[in-house]
C-alpha cells in the first residue's frame, strides 16, 4: 500500500512538510509538546518549505514595485528631494520607511535573505538525496502494476526470460536505467537530469547573489567630466565623484591616463517625426590611452562601446559644452582662463554652470548662468536653447562679488554659493548686471573690475569609470541557471516497471508494464505502448 503512495508521488521532497503539503500531517505536528529544539526544527521546516518560498517570492515581487513608482535616491537624488518637499506629510514618513531607497532598505534585504536561506535549506538536502538517487538503482516494482497511473498488459511469444531480456534491451534503448530486483520484474528509471537541472537552477541563483554582493563590496565607480584637449589621470583626486565599495582601497588605482582628443556628436537635423528633431544620434569620443608603462595608443569610446583599460571600464555616458572663458583684471592680466563645463539641463542642452575667480581684486568674483548652444532669450522662458548643436552659441551670465567659499566647505563647481556675495548692479545701478556673450566677445565689468571674454566653445565628455569584479560570476551563474531551468522544465522523469509471467498457452508470456511519472505526464501511456511494441534497441 505505502509503496504505491510513495511511487505515485515520485517524491523529490526531502522532508515531509510539517503542517503543509497534502495536509495529511496536519494537526499532529502543531501540538504544544515540542520543546525549544522541536520548535526550532518546526520553524526551520516551515522556512524551508515550498509554500514559504512561494510566499516570499510573491512578497519579493510586491516589495520591488515601490522602487519604480517613487524616485530613488541612488538614481536621482534631486528628484527624490523634490518629491519629499512636494509631499510634506507623506514624504518624510516614506523616507523613514525606506521607500526612496527600496533596494537598500532593510525590509527588502530581509525578504531576499530569508528567501535565500530558505533556498539553501531546501536545496542542500535535496542535493544530497539526488546524489544518492543518481547512484542507486531504481526501486523494486510494486506488487500490482495495474494500480500505477499508466498500465498495459499483453501476451507475447517467448519464455518469460526471453521476454524480459527483450524488454530490458528496449528500455535501455530508450535510455532507461534498468535494474532487475528479482527474476520476474524489471525496474527502470530515466530523467534524472530533471532534478539535476532543478538543483543547478536553484544553486546558480545563490551564485548570482554572491556575484552581485562581490561586485558591490569590491567594485567602484567614478565619474569625470573631461573637456576636449584635456587629460584625465586615474587617481582618486581627479574624479568629480567617486563611490567605492566597502572593501575597496581607493588610493590603489591602476595608473593610466586618458586624453580626450576629439568629440563627435550628432543630432537629428531632418525633422522626420514627432519630437525627433534634435534627438541625439551619435556620440563618439576619440581618446589617447596611456597605460602605466607609458605606452600610448588611440582608442575610441562610444555609447555601447566602452573602453577596457585593465583598471576599470570607461563608459561614455554624457556630453555637453565647455565654453572657454577668460577673466582679466583692470590691468588686463589674465586671472582665470579655462574650458568651463556647463551641465545640460534639457534635450536641447540648455546648460548651467559657474565661473569662480577667487583671485580677483578687491573681492572674489563669481559668474553664474547659462550656456546655450543655439540660444534664444525670451521674456517668458528666460534664456534657453532650441537645438542641441552649436548653431548660435551664447553665454548668459550674472555676476557676483564677495566671498566665494564662505565656510570653506566644498561646493559644486557648477553652482555659485551666493550667500556671502552681492550681485553686481546693472546699467545705471538698476537691477542686476546681465551679460550676454557670443564667441569672441568681451564684456567690460563696471567700475574697473576688469573684463570677461567668451573665447570659444569646446565639447566635454562625461566619462564614467567602473569596475565590477563580481560580474563574470553573475553572468556565468545566470547562464547556468538558465540551462538548469530549461533542463528541469523539458526533461521528464519517468519510471517504468515490467513484470513477466508464463501465459496459460505454452511458449507465451504475459508481460505487464506500469509507468509512473513526476507531475502529470500526458505521454506516459504512449511511452508504455512504445516500450511494449518498439523493436529491440530502438528508441
Amino acid at each position, binding site marked *: *500500500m505505502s509503496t504505491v503512495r510513495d511511487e505515485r508521488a515520485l517524491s523529490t521532497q526531502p522532508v515531509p512538510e510539517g503542517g503543509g503539503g497534502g495536509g495529511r500531517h496536519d494537526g499532529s505536528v502543531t501540538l504544544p509538546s515540542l520543546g525549544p529544539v522541536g520548535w526550532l526544527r518546526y520553524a526551520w521546516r516551515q522556512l524551508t518549505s515550498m509554500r514559504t518560498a512561494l510566499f516570499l*517570492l510573491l512578497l519579493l515581487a510586491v516589495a520591488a514595485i515601490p522602487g519604480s513608482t517613487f524616485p530613488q535616491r541612488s538614481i536621482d537624488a534631486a528628484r527624490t528631494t523634490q518629491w519629499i518637499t512636494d509631499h510634506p506629510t507623506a514624504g518624510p514618513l516614506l523616507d523613514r520607511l525606506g521607500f526612496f531607497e527600496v533596494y537598500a532598505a532593510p525590509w527588502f534585504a530581509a525578504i531576499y535573505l530569508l528567501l535565500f536561506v530558505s533556498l539553501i535549506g531546501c536545496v542542500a538536502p535535496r542535493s544530497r538525496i539526488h546524489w544518492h538517487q543518481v547512484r542507486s538503482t531504481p526501486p523494486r516494482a510494486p506488487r500490482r502494476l495495474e494500480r500505477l497511473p499508466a498500465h498495459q498488459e499483453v501476451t507475447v511469444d517467448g519464455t518469460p526470460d526471453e521476454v524480459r531480456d527483450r524488454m530490458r534491451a528496449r528500455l535501455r534503448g530508450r535510455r532507461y536505467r534498468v535494474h532487475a530486483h528479482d527474476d520476474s520484474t524489471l525496474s527502470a528509471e530515466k530523467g534524472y537530469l530533471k532534478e539535476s537541472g532543478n538543483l543547478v537552477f536553484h544553486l546558480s541563483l545563490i551564485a548570482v547573489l554572491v556575484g552581485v554582493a562581490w561586485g558591490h563590496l569590491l567594485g567602484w565607480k567614478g565619474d569625470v567630466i573631461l573637456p576636449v584637449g584635456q587629460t584625465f589621470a586615474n587617481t582618486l583626486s581627479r574624479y568629480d565623484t567617486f563611490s567605492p565599495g566597502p572593501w575597496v582601497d581607493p588610493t590603489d588605482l591602476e595608473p593610466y591616463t586618458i586624453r580626450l582628443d576629439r568629440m563627435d556628436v550628432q543630432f537629428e537635423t531632418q525633422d522626420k517625426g514627432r519630437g525627433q528633431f534634435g534627438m541625439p544620434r551619435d556620440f563618439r569620443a576619440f581618446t589617447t590611452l596611456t597605460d602605466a608603462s607609458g605606452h600610448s595608443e588611440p582608442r575610441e569610446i562610444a555609447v555601447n562601446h566602452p573602453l577596457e583599460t585593465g583598471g576599470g571600464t570607461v563608459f561614455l555616458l554624457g556630453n555637453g559644452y565647455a565654453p572657454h572663458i577668460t577673466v582679466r583684471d583692470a590691468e588686463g592680466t589674465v586671472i582665470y582662463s579655462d574650458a568651463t563645463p556647463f551641465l545640460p539641463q534639457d534635450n536641447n542642452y540648455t546648460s548651467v554652470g559657474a565661473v569662480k575667480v577667487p583671485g580677483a581684486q578687491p573681492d572674489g568674483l563669481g559668474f553664474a548662468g547659462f550656456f546655450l548652444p543655439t540660444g534664444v532669450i525670451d521674456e517668458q522662458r528666460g534664456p534657453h536653447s532650441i537645438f542641441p548643436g552649436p548653431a548660435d552659441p551664447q553665454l548668459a551670465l550674472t555676476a557676483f562679488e564677495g566671498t566665494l567659499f564662505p565656510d570653506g566647505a566644498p561646493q559644486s563647481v557648477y553652482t555659485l554659493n551666493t550667500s556671502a556675495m552681492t550681485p553686481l548692479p546693472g546699467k545705471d545701478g538698476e537691477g542686476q548686471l546681465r551679460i550676454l556673450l557670443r564667441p569672441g566677445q568681451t564684456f567690460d565689468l563696471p567700475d574697473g573690475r576688469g573684463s570677461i571674454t567668451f573665447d570659444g566653445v569646446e565639447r566635454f565628455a562625461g566619462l564614467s569609470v567602473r569596475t565590477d569584479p563580481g560580474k563574470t560570476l553573475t553572468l556565468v551563474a*545566470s547562464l547556468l541557471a538558465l540551462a538548469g531551468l530549461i533542463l528541469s*522544465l523539458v526533461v521528464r522523469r519517468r519510471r517504468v516497471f515490467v513484470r513477466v509471467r508464463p501465459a496459460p498457452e505454452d511458449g507465451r508470456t504475459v508481460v505487464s508494464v506500469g509507468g509512473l511519472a513526476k507531475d*502529470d505526464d500526458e505521454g506516459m501511456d504512449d511511452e508504455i505502448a512504445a516500450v511494449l511494441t518498439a523493436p529491440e534497441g530502438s528508441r
Partner: protein
Amino acid sequence: MTDYTLAQLSNYSVYSAMVVLTLAMLAYALYLARIAPERSERTAEVRERELVPAGAGAEKSASGLDAPPPGPGAGAGESPGVRAAGVDVPEPLGARKAGGVGRTLTMLGTLLVVAGVVLRALEVHRWPLGNMYEFALVGAMFTLVLFTAWSARRDLRWLGLFVVGPVLLVLGAAITVWYTDASELMPSLRSYWLAIHVTVATMTVAVFTIGASLGILYLIQDRLETSGSPRAAFMRRLPSARGLERLTYAAHVVAFPMWSFTLIAGAIWARQAWGSYWNWDPKEVWTFVIWVVYAAYLHARATTGWKRQNATWIALAGFVCVLMNFAVVNMYFVGQHSYSGL
C-alpha cells in the same frame, strides 16, 4: 521620397490586416456559436454528465486505489465523459466552414502584419523595435505567427477568437494611441543587443499572451465543470479544464526561460550602454517583477497542496505585470528606458 512611400505602405498593410483580422475574429466567433451540438446531442451530454461520477467511481474501485485523491483540479477534472462530449460528436457543417474561413483569414492577416513590419524596417533601415508603436506591432506579429504555426500542428480553431481578439485590440491601440513616425534611434539603442534583447522580449510577450488567454479559458472551464451548471454550448467544445490547464502550463514553460533570457540579455546590454548591468531602472524593476511572479507560478504549480486554479491566478497576475510594464511603465515612469517616442 521612396522612404515615405514605404512607411505609407506599411501603414496600409497594418490597416488591411486589421480589417482581415476583424473578419477572422467574426468567423471564429461564428465557429464557436455553430459548434453547439444539436438538441439530441445536448441531451446526450446531460446524460454523460450524470454518468461521470458513477464512471469515475467505478474506475477507482476497479483499480482498488485508495491513495488520497489528487487535489481538486490536479487531475480530478478529466473524466472520459467530458472528453467525449468535446471531441467525438461530429461538427456541424456551418461550424466547419466558419472555422476554415477563420483560419484562412488569420493566415492572411498574419501575412499582412508581417508585411507591415518588414516595410517599416525597410523604411527606417534598422530593426523595427525602437518605440512603443513598433513593440506593439511586432508583438502582435509574433502572436499571430506563433498561433498560426501552432495551428498547423493541432486544431486550435476554438482558441482563434481568444488570440485574434486581443491582437486586434493591441493593433488598434498601437495605430491610434502609440503611433510614432518612422525615425532613427538614439545612440544607446544602437546595438545588436537591441535585436537580441527586445526581439526575444517581444516574442516572449506573445507567448505570455497566448498563455494568459489559455489560463482564463481554463479558469472559466474549471468553474463550469465543478459547478455542474449548464455550460454555454461552445464551452463544451473546448478541451476539458484539465487539458486547458496543461496547455496553459505548456505555454508558460516555453515563455519563462525566454523571459529569463530576456532578463540576462538586458543586463548584458545595460552594462554596455549604461555602465552597470543592473540599475533598478523602472523598466528593469518590472522585468524582474514579471520574472519573479512567473517563477512563483511555476513554483506554485509544483507545490503540493496548492491548487492549479490558484497557481493560474498567479500566472494571470504575471500577465497584468506584463501589460503594466508595456503600457504604464513606458509612458509614465521616469527612467533610462524612456524610448517610447511619445
